[in-house]
């Protein structure tokens, strides 16, 4: 009886976590196919393609969390509500443009996914490889489990370069010498 109870509880615990990795992997593979078909659709303009791409990727990412992480906890909490709202508007636009811009680079390339792995509580990573004509490049999606049990992306390592870490370093450096308003206006334009 005791053994049965033990196996039941142990099994129940793992069954709660099992299956999530497969569903995230399948979802991302399906999403990748949809992205490719949009990119290959020559019948629609690039602007229209971008709108469609954003519709596809928007539900997968937590852009608000990404923005907060890029700014760093101390800086973010020191902002007032108006500054936070402005920052998120500018950052969302910037990151979405940046992401769709990168998708356009790899129209003919294939993205291969390994099975997602839970690395710790509420964190999962999905290793994928971008297969170009001459290279195999690593792209790692980092997910967290949001309060509504949805798994959302909070960072992507493109060829080992973390989007969040790179912005974070840049934002920290910019805010050392510039006011928040100056920084925001630079972020709102293509700075270089």
């Amino acid at each position, binding site marked *: 009886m005791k053994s049965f109870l033990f196996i039941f509880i*142990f099994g129940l615990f793992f069954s709660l976590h099992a299956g999530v990795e497969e569903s995230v992997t399948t979802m991302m593979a399906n999403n990748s196919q949809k992205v490719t078909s949009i990119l290959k659709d020559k019948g629609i303009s690039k602007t229209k393609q971008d709108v469609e791409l954003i519709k596809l990727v928007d539900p997968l990412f937590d852009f608000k969390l990404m923005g907060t992480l890029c700014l760093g906890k101390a800086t973010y909490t020191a902002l007032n509500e108006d500054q936070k709202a402005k920052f998120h508007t500018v950052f969302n636009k910037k990151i979405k443009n940046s992401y769709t811009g990168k998708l356009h680079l790899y129209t003919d390339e294939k993205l291969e996914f390994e099975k997602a792995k839970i690395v710790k509580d509420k964190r999962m990573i999905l290793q994928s490889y971008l297969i170009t004509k001459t290279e195999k490049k690593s792209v790692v999606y980092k997910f967290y489990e949001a309060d509504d049990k949805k798994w959302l992306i909070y960072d992507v390592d493109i060829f080992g370069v973390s989007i969040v870490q790179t912005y974070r370093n840049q934002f920290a450096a910019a805010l050392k010498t510039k006011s928040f308003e100056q920084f925001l206006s630079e972020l709102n334009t293509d700075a270089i």
Partner: protein
Amino acid sequence: MRLVFLFLIVVNLSLFAADADDFNDEFVELKREPFDPLSGYNRVVTNFNDYVFMHILDPYLFKGYEYVAPEVVRSSIKSFFDNLKFPVTFVNNLLQLKFQRAWIDVERFGVNSTVGLFGFFDPATTWLGLSKSNEDFGQTLGYYGVGGGFPIALPFLGQYNLRDLAGGLIDTAADPVYYQDYRQYNLSDNMYESWGIIAYKNFNEASLRANEYKEFRKDALDLYPFIRDAYEQNREMLIKE
């Protein structure tokens, strides 16, 4: 039995225990200011390289080259040079004790040099699924714990750090593209010819990555620290691989 049960429950709980608000901890460690004694020089060189790229290479030289050599030709030329780099990747895989990868390098070199027509094609990847290694002596040094040292930007060649620059110089001893007087196998007859081949090899490779560079530079608020940071993160991943 009760003990085992309790132990497993505790292990489970600790494995999946909620550690709230730890996102910041995942990124905080890299936030330190890097040691960069040449930052002034590096910044000038990076801006120079970017200017040459954006105003000379991309609009004129790459455009002309792409006209005479379509992407499929340029990719084949890159594959040819990648195949020639076999001694470098093979030796570095051995030095990093990656024996299986080293053997794959041998298989790849054998297949691509013959069936792949001197390496211009890559049937080892496309037919046999034997993917290419990307190993160099900079990574070997990193594998054994050697730190990057300070960053160095080189005109036309781009971003390095001290470790990878030293590693790159050592790799030239095994790379047939670089002329070495003492060696039996050289692609060129003398050093000048060798420099010409290296310049062409780099030019061909850069032409394949032109759009990538133009897209990624848009993410920079300040170009030099952005490139330095991305370079270091990329190298760190390659060393860990």
